[in-house]
């Protein structure tokens, strides 16, 4: 109920805001002030967290940097606003941030009622289960979990998905709910419940802090779709296009084998597709159409690498998380990442 009221107030305020600022172009404003104001998570392993020097790093942070690189040719021209789950939407609506790149699930309500546009999906996530294989030996599927006690964080879509899943499969469960992610995990680790559930990316991050990570297995079932992506305000198509194509360009760069290391060489490539993407064709105006320079893709790749490089550095083999590409593999390599062509 409270949520409904809040949503109502937010959307009313959003509409009022849209009406007032429909004419202001975010891209022009960003160019004028000289940096992108980017909303990120206050801390989520692999997606956005400060490193030892206090710089923001992570997979979501790379999207911010890529957008800045496309506009300014410099990935460091970003100012970060750490936002909590509750704050993130008002921060975007009120214009405090230009872009929200904060592991936000693309849902219909957010896209329509709240007045946002999702500029694509940079990570296909989904809710999964982790169990202690020693305690529950023989369990290989979530469908065998009837009667189990489940540690879950309260007030999240995770809790609702859990209820839906068990109801749909006519199974019983005992939820053990906690306010904070750390508490939830600590309770699971100390054996207060049989099952721990959160988004799969979170399950991998959680394994790092378990006492005996090898005892725990992630079950194969994914019970929800959580497509995470960068979000912009509705009503500014130019900005929306730029963010959308920045993400697409990262994916296309991976398809074409353009990496941080070889991007300068690739410019001399004679493959038409690569020449087109890197703005090397005579009279190329792909960048101009987006309102940025022709070497925008070159700048993006130089700043953060292609999609695969960013993924491996922050979430995959180059990071302690060691998340497999899975669904987030290119469409021609068994995943569902698919970017429309630049032409």
């Amino acid at each position, binding site marked *: 109920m409270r949520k409904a009221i809040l949503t109502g*107030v*937010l959307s009313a*305020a959003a509409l009022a*805001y849209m009406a*007032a*600022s429909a004419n*202001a172009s975010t891209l022009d404003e960003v160019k004028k002030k000289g940096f992108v104001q980017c909303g990120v998570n*206050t*801390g*989520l*392993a*692999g997606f956005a*967290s*400060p*490193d*030892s*020097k*206090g*710089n923001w790093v992570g997979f979501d942070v790379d999207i911010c940097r890529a957008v800045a690189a496309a506009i300014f040719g410099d990935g460091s021209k970003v*100012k*970060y*606003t*750490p*936002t*909590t789950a*509750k*704050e993130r939407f*008002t*921060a975007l*609506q*009120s*214009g*405090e941030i230009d872009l929200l790149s904060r592991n936000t699930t693309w849902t219909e309500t957010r896209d329509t009622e709240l007045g946002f546009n999702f500029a694509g999906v940079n990570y296909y996530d989904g809710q999964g289960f982790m169990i202690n294989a020693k305690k529950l030996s023989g369990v290989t599927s979530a469908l065998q979990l009837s009667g189990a006690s489940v540690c879950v964080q309260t007030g999240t879509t995770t809790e609702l998905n859990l209820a839906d899943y068990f109801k749909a499969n006519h199974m019983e469960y005992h939820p053990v709910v906690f306010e904070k992610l*750390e508490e939830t995990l*600590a309770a699971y*680790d100390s054996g207060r419940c049989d099952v721990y559930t959160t988004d799969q990316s979170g399950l991998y*991050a959680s394994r*790092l*802090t*378990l*006492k*005996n*990570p*090898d005892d725990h297995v992630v079950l194969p079932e994914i019970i929800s779709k959580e497509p995470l992506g960068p979000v912009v305000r509705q009503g500014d198509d130019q900005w929306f296009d730029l963010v959308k194509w920045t993400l697409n360009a990262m994916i296309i760069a991976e398809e074409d084998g353009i990496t941080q290391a070889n991007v300068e060489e690739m410019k001399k490539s004679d493959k038409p597709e690569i020449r087109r993407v890197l703005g090397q064709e005579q009279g190329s105006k792909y960048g101009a159409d987006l309102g940025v320079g022709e070497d925008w893709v070159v700048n993006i790749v130089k700043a953060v690498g292609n999609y695969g490089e960013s993924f491996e550095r922050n979430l995959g083999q180059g*990071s*302690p*998380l060691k998340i497999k590409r899975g669904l987030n593999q290119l469409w021609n390599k068994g995943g569902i990442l698919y970017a429309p062509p630049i032409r």
Partner: protein
Amino acid sequence: MQEHDLSFVRTEMAIAEAPPRSAQGTGHWLRTNLFSSVTDSVLTIVGVVVLILIIPPLVDWLFLSAQWTGTDRTFCATTVQGGIRPDGWSGACWAFVGDKLQQFIYGRYPFSERWRVDLVAALFVVLLVPLLIPKVPRKGLNALLLFIIFPIVAFFLLLGGWFGLPHVETPLWGGMMITLIVSFVGISASLPCGIILALGRRSRLPVVKTVCVAFIELIRGVPLITVLFMASVMLPLFLPAGTYFDKLLRAIVGVAIFASAYMAEVIRGGLQAIPKGQFEGADSLGLTYTQKMRLVILPQAIKLVIPGIVSEFIGLFKDTTLVSIIGMFDLLGSVQQNFHDATWATAQTPMTGLVFAGFIYFVFCAGMSRYSMFMERRLDTGHKR
């Protein structure tokens, strides 16, 4: 000729005899303090057992088994967890605190500009210490410097943008720095505001009284989280597009308003404890309202409620951790934020970080509490028990 006086007057004290053996030594001390009754004996034994159970593992975890140096999570994780420690190892990961200490203190304040924070901190100590030591003269000037001049200097130094200092916007501030700034402003604003509100609430002028009562009751009626949340999330939506108030400023104003309302009630408690005779006495001397309050009533009232005031200060200091729910990182916030750094994610990291933060808070709060006890004893002129 002098008459002989046989009466004996002793000119020196007799040498004191040692107390009986049963009333001295360790045995006696133990008997009176630890085993004076059956209940006491049982409690003592239980207490000792509990201490024996707790202290050795605690010392072991905190110091003996702790990992003091390292560059990433492998140093604080066991082999199964992907680290270098043997199986079953458990100890504090001080390497994590060491690696992140700068962030815990300065947040993301630029490296090259951190001398400005250090300078402000040094100024603060230089001005605060003499104010706290009763013997040092010129308290008035000192207070003026600390509460009026210092905040202005600190503001320009920290924010920059003047005199060739680069501008450092507040989202980059964090850690201990935010905790101290928010609580310093909260504490130094809440006492004067609280006094004014408390006097206003007891005023005979209906408008003043109503305004003060309404303010105090409204603020006391909502939790601090709501005030902060309102200031951070809802306020921007009501302001015209493009108007932007600094988030730190909004939080500080929220905290100060909140603390003032509570402080007003503490002070009012003191005012009510002053007998009517004091008011009438002051009136009969022909003192004006200001003189009466300043010279007679408030010194007595405030002295009475020092414990209450300090409790408020300590509470406020700890309440500043709530700013982390609006995406600002005070000491606790930046410690918790760093739990999410995958480079350091281990089973030991969160506990170590929290122990560290707890220790810092304890040092500050215990310091304030000890000082208030000292002050109470000094000012205790008529109510000694």
